């Protein structure tokens, strides 16, 4: 059965972070269940940190960007397989 995929995109050009601070664990790992309000990554642009929320219920399928990599506005960051695990 084909799964629906939700793609999370960056709202702004900046730097992609998988955790909320340099010493913290990644906010999510592939295979993890996520809810709409969950923060899945952070984007830093011009010293302002934006929390990126999942927006959907599902499972983290793929993280498309490496930690601390630059991202463009509207660039795909993560894929979420929709639905309960």
């Amino acid at each position, binding site marked *: 059965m084909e799964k629906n995929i939700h793609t999370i995109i960056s*709202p702004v*050009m*900046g*730097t992609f972070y998988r955790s909320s601070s340099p010493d913290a664990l990644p906010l999510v790992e592939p295979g993890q269940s996520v809810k709409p309000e969950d923060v899945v990554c952070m984007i830093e*642009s*011009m*010293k*302002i940190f934006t929390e990126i929320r999942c927006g959907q219920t599902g499972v983290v399928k793929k993280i498309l960007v490496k930690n*601390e990599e*630059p991202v463009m506005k509207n660039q795909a960051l993560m894929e979420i397989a929709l639905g309960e695990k």
Partner: protein
Amino acid sequence: MTFKKILVANRGEIALRIIRTCREMGIRTVAVYSDADMDSLPVKQADEAVHIGPALSRRSYLNQDAVIAAARETRSDAVHPGYGFLSESASFAQACQDSGFAFIGPSARTIARAGDKSAARQTLMALGIPVIPGSDDVIATPAAACDAADQVGYPVILKAAGGGGGRGMRIARNRQDLLAAFSVASAEAGAAFGNPALYLEKYIEKPRHIEIQILGDQFGNYVHLGERECSIQMRYQKLIEEAPSSFVDEALREQLGSTAIRIARAFDYTNAGTMEFLVDKDKNHYFMEVNARVQVEHPVTELITGLDIVRKQIDIAAGKKLGLVQADILLNGWAMECRINASDPTDNFMPSPGEITSVIFPGGHGVRLDTHIHDRYMVTPFYDSLIGKLCVWAPDRLQAVRRMKRALDEFEITGIATTIDFYKKVFETKQFQDGNIDTHFLEQMDNF
């Protein structure tokens, strides 16, 4: 001592600003740069340039070892840190000194003492310098809150000990208010931060952010250069500054100036520095913090005093005497600054990095523009959003307002969103034109 070569440990407009003064003084300059700033104007204008790492600040402009190595490699005599980055790092100031370079700023010890905010508050309270009165400890019960409020005087504000952002925050104007507010604020704080603890502070009505620029040499000589009014802020970020302040009369200026110098003496402060105060509607003032560096908004003070603050910083660090007494400091006319940021006022001031496709600069009589941007300049997302400072000088405030409006109209940046159009609206409001401002001005502007 005379410096022959200064390394500028910064980027953007402030790096350019420092290089300009060095060139006028006949001092050679070294720029340091990250991958993102390879083609920047400071790199072009400096006599030498050293690459210190990748775009991320943590790996370049905040990398103390890389900056010290660049200073050593280029045989620099001194390091100017600008603002932000390493400018208020006591360990960096110490590292410069240990490596044999003069740090153009206060001593490491002064930076550390002034930077420890609660210790600084205790030091200054002991000297009788007013700070915002408040409870020293967390308030556990409504009765304890009332006792604390009786001490500091109403109105008071309850704040959550566990976090900020307005949650757990309540203003109370009398005992009855306070009793009602306590349980609500405590519950809100508990829900928001998992910690119901509250503390209490005097609530300052219609506060203005007013700061005093000081200069001090290594021989205990101090002058103040008058005040800057910085009440036009968004989320604690200053956007428009002016000097003098229309709210400050000669008596208050003298009072704030002498208090600022007492604070400087308390910290053995040398070099240029700023003492920040909140001033309430009745002109009571409360110390907030020391900014142990040159500030973004220093040009407005330069414009009304005729002094080059960066030049003074360099001379002081080289061990020269101040050569000024308070009577030499004459404030002339009115200056204003608009911080041109790469952010989008129509989208909640979201950062707006990108390529500037074209730019037309304002100019003419009484206009000063400090900027590192140019046609086809790439505003990267790696550093803060300040891309320029538009300043004007005029004989009085009304003429300064008119000149700024004219200069903003001339200024055109295409390719990215900026704050230019937003400032045009601010300058159109009667409240701003009348100087009727406080730190809540921008939150309330839509109602004007």
